[in-house]
């Protein structure tokens, strides 16, 4: 690892100030991607601004059907929240399948979403649950947040503070993990609220997480796995690598979507 300078922030404002003073700074959430990347010398921030000790960024609030999750909340805390499980068990299920138990104890929802790895699980939930991403500067709608692989609407120095959404009537997430890395080769989050249906796909798209309008329309017409039978997933939009070509991934997306609808009930 290259040399770096560590700073611990105790508030969001302090973190933003520290970042302003840093040269090539990076915010450090759980560090489960960033530290691993720095170890490989694939990242070399001059300064690390640690967000892990900012109390106001942690915790889950459920008020009726309205959910707010602090960006600093760990995957483990999302997975094991009884309050969240009562209104949106699909999100707990998703969090419980990220990485491994040790990674889930450190990794955070804010860190994962800000990093926007094309094979990460959380971005699909943010899109499908139509979350509002609150930062230290503004609120960003999920549909405006994800720009491309590892690229979001976040500006220089902007910090995600929390996520909020209204719990859906039905939702589920199903992924096909790469047998070695366990990252999603295709992960599909489906959510139904009233007559609205949102379907978000991660792991497969060549431009990162995306919504699939064709599947959304089919599921609006009939909420059933078979409703997806006639929908075409365009292989031209899919990633291709040694683990699977784009036709294979396009097929996986459809299979995962069907399984998700079946799991949502």
């Amino acid at each position, binding site marked *: 690892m290259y040399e770096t300078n560590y700073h611990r922030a105790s508030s969001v404002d302090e973190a933003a100030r520290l970042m302003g003073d840093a040269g090539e700074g990076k915010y450090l959430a759980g560090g489960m991607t960033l530290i691993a990347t720095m170890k490989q010398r694939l990242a070399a921030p001059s300064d690390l601004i640690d967000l892990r000790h900012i109390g106001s960024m942690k915790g889950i609030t459920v008020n009726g059907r309205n959910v707010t999750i602090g960006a600093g909340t760990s995957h483990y805390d999302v997975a094991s929240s009884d309050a969240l499980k009562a209104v949106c068990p699909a999100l707990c299920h998703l969090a419980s399948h990220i990485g491994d*138990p040790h990674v889930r104890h*450190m990794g955070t929802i804010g860190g994962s979403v800000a990093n926007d790895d094309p094979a990460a699980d959380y971005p699909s939930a943010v899109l499908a649950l139509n979350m509002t991403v609150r930062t230290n500067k503004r609120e960003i709608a999920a549909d405006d947040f994800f720009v491309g692989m590892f690229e979001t609407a976040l500006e220089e120095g902007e910090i995600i503070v929390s996520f909020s959404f209204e719990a859906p009537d039905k939702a589920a997430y199903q992924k096909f993990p790469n047998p070695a890395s366990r990252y999603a080769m295709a992960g599909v989050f489906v959510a139904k609220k009233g007559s609205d249906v949102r379907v978000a796909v991660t792991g497969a798209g060549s431009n990162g997480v995306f919504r699939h309008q064709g599947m959304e329309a089919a599921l609006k017409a009939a909420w059933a796995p078979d409703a997806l039978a006639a929908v075409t997933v365009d292989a031209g939009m899919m990633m291709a690598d040694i683990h699977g070509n784009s036709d294979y991934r396009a097929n996986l997306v459809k299979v995962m979507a069907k399984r998700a609808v079946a799991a949502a009930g």
Partner: protein
Amino acid sequence: MTKVTLTVNGRKVSGECEDRTLLVNFIRENLGLTGTHVGCDTTQCGACVIHMDGRSVKSCTILAVQASGSDITTIEGISSGDTLHPVQAAFKENHGLQCGFCTPGMVMTAVDMIRRHGGQLDEQTVRQELEGNICRCTGYHNIVKSILSAADEMGGAQQAAE
């Protein structure tokens, strides 16, 4: 150099290190506690698992400065004197190790797993929970057996105490 202060196995310790020093290196080199191992460069193997503030973490993917102020338990801190922790005893009894390199991480993972699941552990859950720990000798069979045996033992001991 930055001063790092930790409580390790119940003892307050401090030392100086670079900001880029990994917690596992601080534990091994500054504190001389070499039971915590480094088995890979990629956060995959779990040989470095310790407990930080009561939760299992990979000490190879946390900076020592990030951990400063926290309460750490390493493999050296779980037995009581000469009496092995029930998980250590179960690994010994069930031949849950061969070369032993992954064992400290496996044991610390198992202690955390049993804490979280209590008496609810079954073989499938144990195998899923071992996602972050790699063993190249045993084929995992006897590790799973050891953890289930320890969970039974500890569950039984808790019931007896109630």
